C-alpha cells in the first residue's frame, strides 16, 4: 500500500521536476560548466605539488559528484518543499491518506535520480574531453555516492524547515557557495589559508568530497570522515523531525 503511494508520488515528482527547466539547468548544467572551465584551465596533467600528485580532473570529477548532490540538497529540494508549504500543497497532502514519509521518500528518490544523471554527465564529459582515469574502486565510489545522498537529503529536509521558499533559497545559496569554494570543488586544501581550512573542516561537503575522492583516486578511506558525514546527516534529520511544519 505505502509502496504504491511512494511509487506514484515519485513518478509525479519526477515529471514535475522535468517541467521546471530552471531547476533542471541549474542542477545538471552547473557541474558541467565547472568541469569545462577548470578542465580548460588545468587540463588533466598531474602536478606533483597539488592534488596529491593526481591529475586535476581526476581530483575534481569525484568532487563534482558531491557538488551535484550539494546543489540538490541545498537548493532544489529545500526550495521545492518550502514552496509546497507556502502554496498549501503540504497542507493538502497532509489531509490525504498518503503517509508522511512517502512525501520525503519520493523527494529522496527523485533527488537520487537527478544526482545520478548529473554524475553520468560529469563523468562522461570528463572521460570524453579530458580522458580522466577510471575510478580505482567503482563499488567504493558507489558507496560514497550513497553516503553523499544521505547527507544532502537530510540537510535538504532540514533547510526545507525554513518557512518560506525565499528564505530557504537564501540560506541554501549561501551554504552552497561557501561549500562550492571551500569543500574541494574549488581550490585544493593544500593551497588554502588557515581560516579557509577551519571553515572547510566544518562543512559537510568537505567530508563528502574526501569520501568520494578516496575510492576514485585509490587513496586510503578515513572511516572518521564517513562517521562525521553520517553524524551530520543524523543531526540534520533529528533537527528536521522536530522543526518541520506542514503549514
Amino acid at each position, binding site marked *: 500500500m505505502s509502496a504504491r503511494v511512494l511509487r506514484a508520488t515519485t513518478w*509525479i515528482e519526477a515529471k514535475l521536476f522535468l*517541467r521546471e527547466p530552471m531547476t533542471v539547468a541549474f542542477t545538471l548544467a552547473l557541474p558541467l560548466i565547472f568541469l569545462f572551465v577548470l578542465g580548460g584551465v588545468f587540463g588533466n596533467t598531474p602536478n606533483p605539488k597539488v592534488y596529491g600528485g593526481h591529475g586535476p580532473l581526476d581530483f575534481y570529477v569525484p568532487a563534482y559528484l558531491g557538488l551535484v548532490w550539494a546543489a540538490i540538497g541545498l537548493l532544489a529540494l529545500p526550495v521545492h518543499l518550502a514552496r509546497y508549504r507556502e502554496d*498549501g500543497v503540504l*497542507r493538502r497532502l*497532509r489531509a490525504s491518506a498518503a*503517509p508522511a514519509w512517502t512525501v520525503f521518500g519520493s523527494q529522496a528518490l527523485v533527488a537520487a535520480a537527478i544526482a545520478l544523471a548529473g554524475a553520468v554527465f560529469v563523468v562522461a564529459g570528463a572521460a570524453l574531453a579530458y580522458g580522466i582515469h577510471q575510478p580505482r574502486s567503482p563499488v567504493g565510489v558507489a558507496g560514497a555516492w550513497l553516503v553523499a545522498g544521505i547527507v544532502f537529503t537530510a540537510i535538504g529536509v532540514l533547510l526545507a524547515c525554513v518557512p518560506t521558499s525565499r528564505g530557504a533559497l537564501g540560506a541554501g545559496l549561501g551554504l552552497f557557495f561557501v561549500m562550492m569554494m571551500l569543500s574541494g570543488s574549488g581550490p585544493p586544501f593544500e593551497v588554502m589559508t588557515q581560516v579557509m581550512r577551519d571553515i572547510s573542516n566544518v562543512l559537510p561537503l568537505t567530508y563528502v568530497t574526501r569520501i568520494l575522492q578516496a575510492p576514485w583516486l585509490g587513496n586510503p578511506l578515513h572511516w572518521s570522515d564517513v562517521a562525521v558525514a553520517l553524524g551530520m546527516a543524523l543531526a540534520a534529520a533529528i533537527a528536521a523531525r522536530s522543526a518541520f511544519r506542514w503549514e
Partner: protein
Amino acid sequence: MEVVIAVDGLTKRYGGTTVVDGISFEIGRGEIFGIIGRNGAGKTTTVECLQGLRRADGGRVRVLGLDPMTEAAELRRHIGSQLQESSLPQRIKVWEALRWFASFAPNARDPQQLIRQWGLEEKRNAHFSDLSGGQRQRLFIALALVNDPELVFLDEMTAGLDPAARRTAWDLVREVREAGTSVVLVTQYMEEAERLCDRVAVFERGKIVALDTPGALIARHAQKITVRFSAAEHGLDWLAGIAGVSDVSRRNSAVEVRGSGPLLAEVGAALVQHGIRPPDLRADMPDLEDVFLTITGKRSDE
C-alpha cells in the same frame, strides 16, 4: 441513527483567543450536516480538528469511532477533505492529480469518471496553474471524493463557482450522499445550506447558537412573511386589521404587508372581498438568511 461524528466540549485556542468554545454535536451516517457562520466564527477550525489537522485544546472528538489526533493515519483512509487555502503543484495536470490521489486508497473511484462528473474533461491535460478558480475548486472536490470516503468534509466548496456550477455541485453532493457518504458542509451561502443540508449548526464566536433542520430553524426563528402586490386603489387601511398582520407599507402602487401565520391566504381572501384582484400577488417566505439575522443580529456576509 449511527453516529459518524461525536463532538463533546471541543475547545481550541490560538494564543489567548478562544476560537472554538466548548461545542458539542453529533452527526449521523448519511447526513448532510451544514456549518454556517461568518468568517472567524470557528467553522474551519472545528472541521480541521475533526480531520486531525489541528490539535484540540479540550473536549472529546470521535470521527468514525477514531480519535483524529492519535489515529489520524487510519482516519484519513476513510474520509475525504476539501480544504480552504490548499493547493497542488503548479505544473501537475488534472488527470495526474486525480490518479495520484487515487493511488492513496485501495478502493479508489475511477478518476476518469470524476473528471467527467465534475466537468473537467476539457481541462484534463491542463496544468493546475492554468485552471480558473472554479475549475480548481471542482478539482479539489473531485480529489476529496476519489478515495470513495465514508465521510467527506467540504469547506466552502462552492466558493468561486458561478451559479450554474454551484447548482451542479449541489446535485452531485446529493448523489454522493445517496451513495451512502456522510457530508460535513461548511458554507457562508445560506441558500446552499438551506437547499442541501439535513441539519444546520449556526456558529457564532466559537459557539453553536442554533442547531436543527433548516425548516425547523426557520419556523422557530423567522416567522416573518412578506406579502407583496400592486394596487392603484387608495384607502387600504383595512389590511392592518387582517389576522397576523404586523405592518403595512406602500410606495406608489407597490404594497407590502408583513406578518406571520397563513398570511398570503388571509391577504388574498381580503383583497378579493374588497374587489381587488392584483395579478402580481406573491409572498416572500423567510429563509435561513432571516434565521441568521435573527439569531446573530447580522447578515451572513457582514
